[in-house]
């Protein structure tokens, strides 16, 4: 069965792009969330195999959401999606338990690599 991925990003554009990439690489999109709060809620409901987590989001940011998800499931696989200037936030997310990161603008090759490294 295809591994399931939860896509978290407040931007529709990014979610669409990620969804396409996830599916192209043979994985399934479990669900999408538009902020950290929703991400945590949906993680509980779906227990996806992996989460792609945007950092800057309304309500709850990706770092906090990563922390909460790690509290729920210490084996959770979270990949944070950061912008170029967000190095400190990436560091924080990695400390919070994220397994990997991708930098926007996202490149298909990098997304594939990150997904495969964790899921294969």
């Amino acid at each position, binding site marked *: 069965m295809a591994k399931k991925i939860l896509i978290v990003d407040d931007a529709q554009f990014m979610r669409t792009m990620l969804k396409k990439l996830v599916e192209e690489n043979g994985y399934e999109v479990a669900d999408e969330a538009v902020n950290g709060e929703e991400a945590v809620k949906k993680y509980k409901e779906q227990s996806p195999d992996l989460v792609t987590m*945007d950092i800057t989001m309304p309500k709850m940011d990706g770092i906090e959401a990563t922390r909460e998800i790690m509290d729920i499931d210490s084996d959770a696989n979270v990949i944070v999606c950061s912008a170029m200037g967000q190095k400190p936030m990436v560091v924080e997310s990695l400390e919070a338990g994220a397994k990997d990161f991708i930098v926007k603008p996202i490149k298909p090759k990098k997304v594939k690599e990150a997904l495969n490294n964790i899921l294969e």
Partner: protein
Amino acid sequence: MDMDEFQEMYASESREHLDILNDALLTLENDPENMEMVNESFRAAHTLKGMAGTMGFDQVSELAHAMENILDELRNGEIAVTTEVINLLFRAVDNLELLSSDPDQVEDLEGLIKELRNYTGDDTELSTGNQETSASSNNDYFSLDQDELEMVEDTPGETVIIKVILESDCVFKSLRADMVFDALEELGELIKANPSIDDIREEKLDEEFQVLFLTKESKETLSDALSNISEVDTIEIEVVEDLDDLSIQQESTGAEQEDESTIDGAKDKDSKSKKKSKTQSLSSRLRSSSTIKVDVDRLDSLMNLVAELVIKRTQVESVARSYDLDDLEKKLKPLSKVTTDLQDAVMEMRMVPISMVFNRFPRLVRDLAQDLEKDINLKIEGEETELDRTIIDEIGDPLVHLIRNSIDHGIEPPAEREEKDKPREGLVKLSAFHEGNNVVIQIEDDGAGIDPDVIEEKAIDKGVASPSEIENMSDQEIINLIFAPGFSTNEEVSDVSGRGVGMDVVKNKLDSLNGSIDIKSEVGKGSTFTMKLPLTLSIIQGFLTTVADQKYVIPLESIQEIVDVQPEDIQTIRQEQVIHRRGSVIPLISLRNKLGKEDDFEEEEISTVIVEIANDYYGLMVDSIIGQQEVVIKRINDLSENIEKIAGGAILGDGSIALILNVEEITIG
């Protein structure tokens, strides 16, 4: 929005590197022996190349690459610093600037790149290749001090050198290196890294780094552990058989090694130490020593957090009010003051020194002086004066125009100046200082001054003013005519889509920034232009939303919270749609409806911004919410008198316009 942030980030960073290039080349021109400047420009070009490449700006990347090659040869002494090569490099810098600011003006790029390549006498890609391999081949040696050597000898297991090459488009190389270190830490003992761990943490590394590592694990285990890290391109693991292969650091080896076969290594060390001194020299030039550099993004996120805090505070305040909790309300007062102070403090942090703009002018003046065959001494004062960074962005063009004017029309040619008993060299003084809540910028020259008679003639000629009007004007009023529209418009409008830049444009710019400009001039002695600008622009925090494909900003101060309303939660009371929330009934307002758009938007959940106006709550239904953003309010010239619903406009990072909603008008009106 992230893309915008990213673009902006690229723009400001590349601006920084272009400034470094400009500065370094200028210094180099006057001091051709200054190798530090060559290195500095080389690194700037190299960084630009990389940044542009990541962004997919291939032209910028290629041009920077061509520059890098020339600079590399200058660095290696293969070619000499001549006016010719400096001019060529300046041209490249100019075009790099244009590529990002005004791509239409860029000259024939291929030609220029070819010219640059011809200059290196080598049109292959070799040079960068060299540069990269030189960085790698030197890494074969680690120098250990006595302690480290003892540690290697005393620890059981094998000593290996692990060479890691990251993918060339990897963005946060240091983080990848950190992930490598983390993975290794579980498998053995990390002795040393090359470049050093400190350098790596500061992103001072190319694609490649090496680790000297003590382990009991097999090569395969190590390799497996590392290959699961993203953006790692290759891993090479080599067992060190003989510890003598590792160089041992001694106090005085530096000089000798340079002459030996490890030239590459020595060179790299050399350039590394220079890199350090460069960072110091550069930062000390830009800022005083007691400051730290903060990433703009971090500042913005702090700003956002403060704004968030303000929202939360108002939420608590409204609860206190609705339940008549006087004590709580009283306790909240000081909190409210603290948050306001905090907001002010963050605003203050956005202030940047005006040197960010002034820094460009030595180059501009040099070029103009060369073109116009004038001798000019540019004096800059008060470059540490601080202004909000949004204003800094806006005043560049007007200043360029005024300086051009002073040099072109103000300063006389050297021969003429001698006749007038003035020094051959003309003086242009650029100064900035604070005055109350304003920043004053002056451009002063000791040139010919502005002759009212000449202005009068030109004004009549151009139809800006009639002879009878001028008759009643004082000299000062006549001089002020140069700001009238049409006065300095070009004689011929040849390219109908081209820019018309005149003094009137300068004045308009200052008006739009709520500033002012005036002139003092004395015939034969010179002129002084004085610009006054507010310290900060009117900036507001708001939530960027979309309604029928147009972006609107809802000011944060009125926002209580943002909710997704489910259709089943909506009730109709007296033909009004409402929702219940925390015990109160909140009327819903469709912004599509209010803004005269078709109200055919259907979604499962309706993004709704709850606002508070005069103690009443309203829910503004929007199509979607993009996120929190800080915008500069620009006035809209109200030609059509009924746009009360819009409080102003704001220009977003992608150049599009967002309209700022007048929430009061929308809810009550």
